[in-house]
């Protein structure tokens, strides 16, 4: 039997690639391998589940058996690959060698954990997949107060969602505004004010220094001396692309697994997409670039080498209390910001020296202008 196309990972990247590939090639053997339970779900929806009263089962869209049937693929769940042997076109699952025709790395990114002193490490959760979400929901049942670490996009989304779900959220992050690096300060202030109106409290500047059990509750000591009482901690300080197995196999890695515009790594027959991939220098942890990559790579795997292109990639942040959409200026481009509006409706625009729009941040009612503005933005990978 011919060696299969092997996709490692069954998140949005793995399953969407498989789906696109099957539109073009219904016969070639296809194997998906995942360390998870293989259920199909949408990761962005993990930060909307409390507000919608959806548990992990409610967010699951399909069981792996149904996915295998739909994709005409074999799906190996709860299976972790242990190595890649590019010279022999095979990978290892423990002692078992699995040959591949083409190998696609779609194994995503892992959460960054910050060191915290104290005896309550076990009460620090993070949510990076559906099973994490199930664990956190179980831990949060019957609890009231969540200490949230990190003021990035995901931290803000969870603050909105948990507040809406009835939790008292205290957010701690070592920065001066929410979503630094992504967002103009004026729009950041609007989002923070919105989240505060839901009852969330912000401690921007310090970090969590130590966490101790204190009876049924937890005692959190911040680096600025503040002491907070809480019931559990959710860490959302960021993600790091998974590169270790790729690096061990000799593949070029940088921030992510280095691939070209055809999603090809430094080795023949090995590709990467999604959160683990650095595509022509860009490691974008969002759905839209992932979908573009899945469509291009499906063509390549089906015998028609195709380069991916990215248009503008605005990011919608799911903070319904103060809707937000942001398109940071592309790398290497400098511009001047102008800010209009007030209250929750902020329109911050960034123009280059010749007057072209290169980025924006829109909050509140101003988000309505996004589709019109998107047409003016430069493409990220033309």
């Amino acid at each position: 039997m011919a060696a299969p196309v092997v996709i490692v990972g069954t998140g949005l990247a793995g399953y969407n690639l498989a789906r696109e590939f099957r539109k073009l090639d219904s016969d070639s053997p296809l194997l998906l391998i995942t360390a998870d339970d293989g259920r199909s779900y949408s990761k962005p929806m993990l930060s909307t589940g409390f507000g919608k009263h959806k548990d992990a089962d409610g967010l699951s869209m399909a069981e792996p058996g149904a996915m295998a049937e739909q994709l005409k693929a074999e799906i190996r769940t709860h299976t972790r690959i242990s190595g890649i042997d590019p010279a022999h076109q095979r990978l290892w699952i423990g002692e078992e060698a699995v040959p591949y025709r083409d190998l696609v790395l779609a194994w995503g990114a892992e959460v960054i954990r910050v060191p915290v002193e104290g005896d309550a490490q076990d009460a620090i959760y993070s949510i990076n997949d559906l099973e994490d979400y199930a664990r956190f929901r179980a831990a949060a049942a019957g609890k009231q107060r969540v200490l949230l670490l990190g003021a990035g996009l995901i931290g803000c989304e969870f603050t909105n969602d948990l507040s809406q779900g009835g939790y008292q959220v205290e957010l701690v992050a070592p920065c001066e505004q929410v979503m630094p690096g992504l967002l103009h300060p004026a729009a950041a202030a609007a989002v923070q004010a919105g989240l505060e109106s839901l009852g969330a409290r912000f401690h921007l500047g310090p970090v969590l220094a130590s966490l101790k059990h204190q009876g049924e509750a937890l005692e959190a000591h911040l680096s600025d001396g503040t002491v907070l009482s809480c019931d559990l901690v959710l860490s959302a300080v960021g993600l790091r692309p998974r590169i270790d197995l790729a690096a061990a196999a000799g593949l070029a890695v940088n921030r992510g697994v280095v691939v070209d515009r055809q999603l090809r790594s430094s080795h023949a027959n090995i590709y990467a997409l999604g959160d683990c991939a650095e595509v022509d220098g860009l490691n974008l942890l969002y759905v839209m670039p992932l979908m573009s990559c899945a469509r291009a790579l499906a063509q390549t795997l089906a015998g028609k080498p195709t380069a991916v292109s990215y248009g503008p990639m605005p990011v919608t942040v799911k903070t319904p209390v103060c809707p937000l959409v942001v398109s940071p200026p592309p790398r290497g481009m400098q511009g001047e910001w102008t800010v209009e509006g007030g209250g929750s409706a902020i329109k911050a625009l960034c123009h280059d020296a010749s007057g072209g729009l290169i980025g924006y941040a829109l909050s509140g009612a101003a988000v309505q202008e996004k589709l019109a503005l998107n047409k003016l933005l430069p493409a990220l990978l033309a």
Partner: protein
Amino acid sequence: MRKWQCVVCGFVYDEAAGLPEEDIAPGTAWEDIPADWLCPDCGAGKIDFEMIEIS
């Protein structure tokens, strides 16, 4: 008029409002949106991820 939500990213398509910036006129029913249309927020396809009716 109904509203549809993208199951991948949560984008809501409101039939009453349409998407004038994408030349989809207000009042356009979900059925009349082209099959190759992509979610403006996340790029999910209309076929791959049927939006769900939310009202």
